[in-house]
């Protein structure tokens, strides 16, 4: 009796000591939890979710519960929920035209646009006044290349670019050739990087602009931007870089890298589609002849109403990217290595295109010898992948980028690009690697060429009969 009475008070004491604390905490948490639970239950029960049904347009829509994994981060990225959260008020209540000076709707939109301009400037180390909003990197590239070349046409008429640039830069250069400009399309080395000596030798007194992309969209190589910038500055040539695949993913500073013009895309850095930016240096000043006529928005360089919600999205995406850059990069590197190691450990004759060191790890381009890329893509229908850029994915032509790096025709045909992003998981990487190994082995088993290669016959020595 005496024994229990001694123990009991201690237990009671402990309960009294601990319980109030527990009581204090639980109701709070529970209440919030219940409220949210109720709220989401209410939306789930009372509000029917909107799901687009477009089966009339296409019959091969993905099944609702077996959607493919997304591994095509170079084509586009999903919107970060933080970005959508920032955008929504400008779709719902704050719909003013940012150029309206006569009322509050305009002022609040203008404030939002200017705040976003600061966010974009911050991530590239620029002054906000040097950032102009466009519809995307394609438009930015067009304004930069055509606009700069045309403005200085009376003085200089030579442009240098590379063979591995994005189509919109190459086509802008082609358009300029039609106008009488001379364009040098620099070859790249086997690893996809340009040779600075070759670049320097191509520069003439007439060269007005050098345009080299920061990170390649197909093979992920990172060009030596700082060195190119230095070289251009010393020769008083403007330097434009298409950094659509680089901004927010690798550190970029327009002053350290001596960049004069830079293109940015919203939807490659977890922002919305239909928005981009162009960095235009103020000191030393780069002048541009605007290709588009209109109301003179964006310092006259890009007329047209600035789309506030999209601009807010781009700004927010830049801010999030700046916070997350280190974290994302180390994680993407881990996932990228995991994918490459798994595949290369299990499969022979898998060639990585582009320099393995000087490249952005989120873009892995592999060639599977003796496997036709398109058949592999068909077999891997559970995974959203591409053999190259989305722009050219409709054609069966091998990628011009891979041909430029000197990949053999057959290897250029057998390439697949794996795009790893902020939201990719280990499980997705493992699934992709497994499926890839399984289908490449299966397709090789069926290939007579693979059989011959196994027997030691060099495929290149075969004389094919002419038909």
């Amino acid at each position, binding site marked *: 009796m005496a024994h229990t009475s001694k123990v009991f008070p201690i237990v009671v004491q402990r309960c009294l000591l601990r319980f109030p604390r527990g009581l204090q905490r639980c109701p709070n948490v529970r209440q919030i939890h219940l409220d949210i639970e109720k709220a989401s239950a209410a939306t789930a029960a009372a509000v029917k979710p909107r799901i687009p049904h477009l089966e009339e347009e296409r019959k091969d829509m993905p099944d609702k519960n077996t959607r493919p994994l997304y591994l095509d981060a170079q084509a586009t990225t*999903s919107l970060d929920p933080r970005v959508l959260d920032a955008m929504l008020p400008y779709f719902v209540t704050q719909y003013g035209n940012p150029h309206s000076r006569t009322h509050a709707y305009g002022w609040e939109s203008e404030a939002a646009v200017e705040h976003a301009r600061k966010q974009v400037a911050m991530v590239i180390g620029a002054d906000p006044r040097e950032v102009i909003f466009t519809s995307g990197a394609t438009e930015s590239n067009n304004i930069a290349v055509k606009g700069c070349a045309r403005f200085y046409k009376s003085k200089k008429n030579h442009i240098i670019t590379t063979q591995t640039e994005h189509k919109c830069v190459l086509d802008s250069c082609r358009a300029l050739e039609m106008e009488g400009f001379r364009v040098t399309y620099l070859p790249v080395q086997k690893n996809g990087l340009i040779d600075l000596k070759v670049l320097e030798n191509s520069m003439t007194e007439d060269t007005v602009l050098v345009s080299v992309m920061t990170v390649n969209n197909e093979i992920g190589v990172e060009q030596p931007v700082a060195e190119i910038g230095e070289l251009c500055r010393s020769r008083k040539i403007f330097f434009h870089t298409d950094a659509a695949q680089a901004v927010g993913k690798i550190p970029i500073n327009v002053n350290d890298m001596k960049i004069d013009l830079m293109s940015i895309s919203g939807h490659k850095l977890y922002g919305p589609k239909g928005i981009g930016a162009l960095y235009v240096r103020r000191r030393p000043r780069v002048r541009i002849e605007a290709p588009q006529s209109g109301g003179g928005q964006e310092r006259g360089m890009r007329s047209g109403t600035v789309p506030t919600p999209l601009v807010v999205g781009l700004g927010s995406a830049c801010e999030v990217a700046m916070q997350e850059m280190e974290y994302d990069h180390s994680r993407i590197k881990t996932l990228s290595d995991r994918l490459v190691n798994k595949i290369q450990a299990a499969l022979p004759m898998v060639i990585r295109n582009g320099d393995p060191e000087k490249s952005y790890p989120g873009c892995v381009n592999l060639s599977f010898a003796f496997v036709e890329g398109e058949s592999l893509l068909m077999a891997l229908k559970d995974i959203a992948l591409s053999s190259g850029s989305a722009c050219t994915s409709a054609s069966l032509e091998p990628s011009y980028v891979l041909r430029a790096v000197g990949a053999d025709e057959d290897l250029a045909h057998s390439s697949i690009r794996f795009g790893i992003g902020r939201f990719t998981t280990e499980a997705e990487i493992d699934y992709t690697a497994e499926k890839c190994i399984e289908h490449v082995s299966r397709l090789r088993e069926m290939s007579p060429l693979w059989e011959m290669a196994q027997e030691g016959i060099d495929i290149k020595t075969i004389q094919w009969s002419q038909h």
Partner: protein
Amino acid sequence: MASHRKIIQLYRNLLREGKKFKSYNYREYAVRRTRDAFKEHKNEQDPKKIASLLKSAEENLDIVRRQVLIGEMYGDGRLIIESTIKHAT
């Protein structure tokens, strides 16, 4: 200085709410990012830094809550990997 209890509560709420994302990728990210962020700053001593981290955590909790609701309304469908994982277990 913010109480230890408040931090734990915020951490739990972020995890609990993050798990409600309908989208597999957002759900996994929310949980992973919360864990890694709290782990990263586990030994933070500077009260100013702690206060600013707490503020951003609170803002993120609100974002997660709103975006979970958006996902309920517009985000339908599961990834193939989710059904595969289900089958495996």
